[in-house]
């Protein structure tokens, strides 16, 4: 199997039997960016957590680089995958600098290399290190926190990235700037990316393919142009909300 990420008949249920993910199957090729659209509560975050094994499927299997996540050492798997958490999820007692340095320091990079990498990442997400490096998350705006979350996920240069509504808290202008930067980054960095959003414009801008989730099911996973023409009420609703 050549796909970087694959779901095979994945179901995920919580205690009490409630199904959060219903029989989801798909494959993602290397260096592809898939954007997952879906309403609030449709199971997007749950899907991402099944990839880095924060959750284990109730039935079915998730494969990362050909190996079932159950066979991966979870620590190795997670350090192999950059994860941008919805609402950033920064450590409140770490400075911005230390938050971004987290995975490199877990991987015992030399001090000097970590420092220069952190500065590089801060520049990348448009936060001048001189101003932001020493601040604590509570001293940042929501949008700045999100950007630190993106920098943290990129810091150790993982080949796979999961982004859970990474730009949700940004104003429209900054948002469209950072989206463009992200698109350039995508071209340069060559990563396999799963990007969750409920912003259709963002999906069309960044996705090589677009997936649509509803009630824990993956209704479709198609190239952007085909997605636009898709004749499904949920897809129509999303596409129309954009135009």
């Amino acid at each position, binding site marked *: 199997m050549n796909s970087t990420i694959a779901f095979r008949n994945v179901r995920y249920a919580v205690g009490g039997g409630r199904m959060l993910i219903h029989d989801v199957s798909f494959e993602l090729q290397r260096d592809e960016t898939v954007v997952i659209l879906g309403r609030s509560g449709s199971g997007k975050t749950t899907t991402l*957590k099944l990839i880095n094994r924060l959750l284990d499927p109730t039935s079915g299997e998730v494969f990362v680089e050909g190996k079932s996540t159950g066979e991966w050492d979870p*620590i190795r798997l*997670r350090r192999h995958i950059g994860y941008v958490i919805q*609402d950033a*999820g920064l450590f*409140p*007692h770490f400075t911005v600098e230390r938050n971004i340095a*987290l995975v490199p320091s*877990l991987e015992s990079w030399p001090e000097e290399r970590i420092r220069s990498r952190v500065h590089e990442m801060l520049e990348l997400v448009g936060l001048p290190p001189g101003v932001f490096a020493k601040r604590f998350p509570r001293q940042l705006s929501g949008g700045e926190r999100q950007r630190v979350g993106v920098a943290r996920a990129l810091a150790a240069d993982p080949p796979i990235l999961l982004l859970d509504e990474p730009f949700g808290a940004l104003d429209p202008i900054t948002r469209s700037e950072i989206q463009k930067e992200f698109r350039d980054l995508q071209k340069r960095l060559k990563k396999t990316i799963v990007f969750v959003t409920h912003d259709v414009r963002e999906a069309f801008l960044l996705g090589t393919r677009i997936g649509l989730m509803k009630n824990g099911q993956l209704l479709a996973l198609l190239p952007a142009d085909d997605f636009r023409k898709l004749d499904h009420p949920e897809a129509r609703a999303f596409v129309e909300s954009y135009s």
Partner: protein
Amino acid sequence: MNVFDVMWTNRSQVLQLTIEHIFLVAVSMAIALAIGLPLGILMTRMPRISRPVLGFANVVQTIPSLALFGFLIPIPFIGGIGARTAIVALVLYSLLPIIRNTFTGISGVDPAIREAGRGMGMTDSQLLWQVELPLAMGVIFAGIRTATVVAVGVATIAAAVGAGGLGMFIFRGVSMVDGRMILAGAIPSAVLALAADLGLGAVEKRLGRI
């Protein structure tokens, strides 16, 4: 002669008993921390043991301190007359606030932050040392502070089992019906408790700020 005259005349003994008192409290606290912190942490990893452990610590705390000292005297190895019995009793008394606050402090860390750490690939021990303990430190320290202040007070009873400390003056004063003598033990003990409270309180405040 007023209280302070009595203390001044017996100044070398006041000093000696104060040192004994501090020694009893310090040794007990060190042992209670060595037991209570790992136990509190373990409870967050094995929630099933948390109820019985907290239950035991709770029950110990409800035994009147004089009775606890008395119970311990006839027990071989840990009991008998002297500092050892007193230290065992003080350790038992100090455990509850330390265990409870370690457990609740760590359990109280926002699950989203814990999940973020796991998502970044932290191992359980990295999560504990780098995230959970630092974030719980304020609460844990509040427990240590409570335990210390209680121990300073309870240590006055150590004199009843021959362990010395400022309780010597208090028991002597009681048997001689001499209020000044009682105060000669009670005042330094209260000062110690206050100093511990303020000192540890200052540390706690600094830890809580993160």
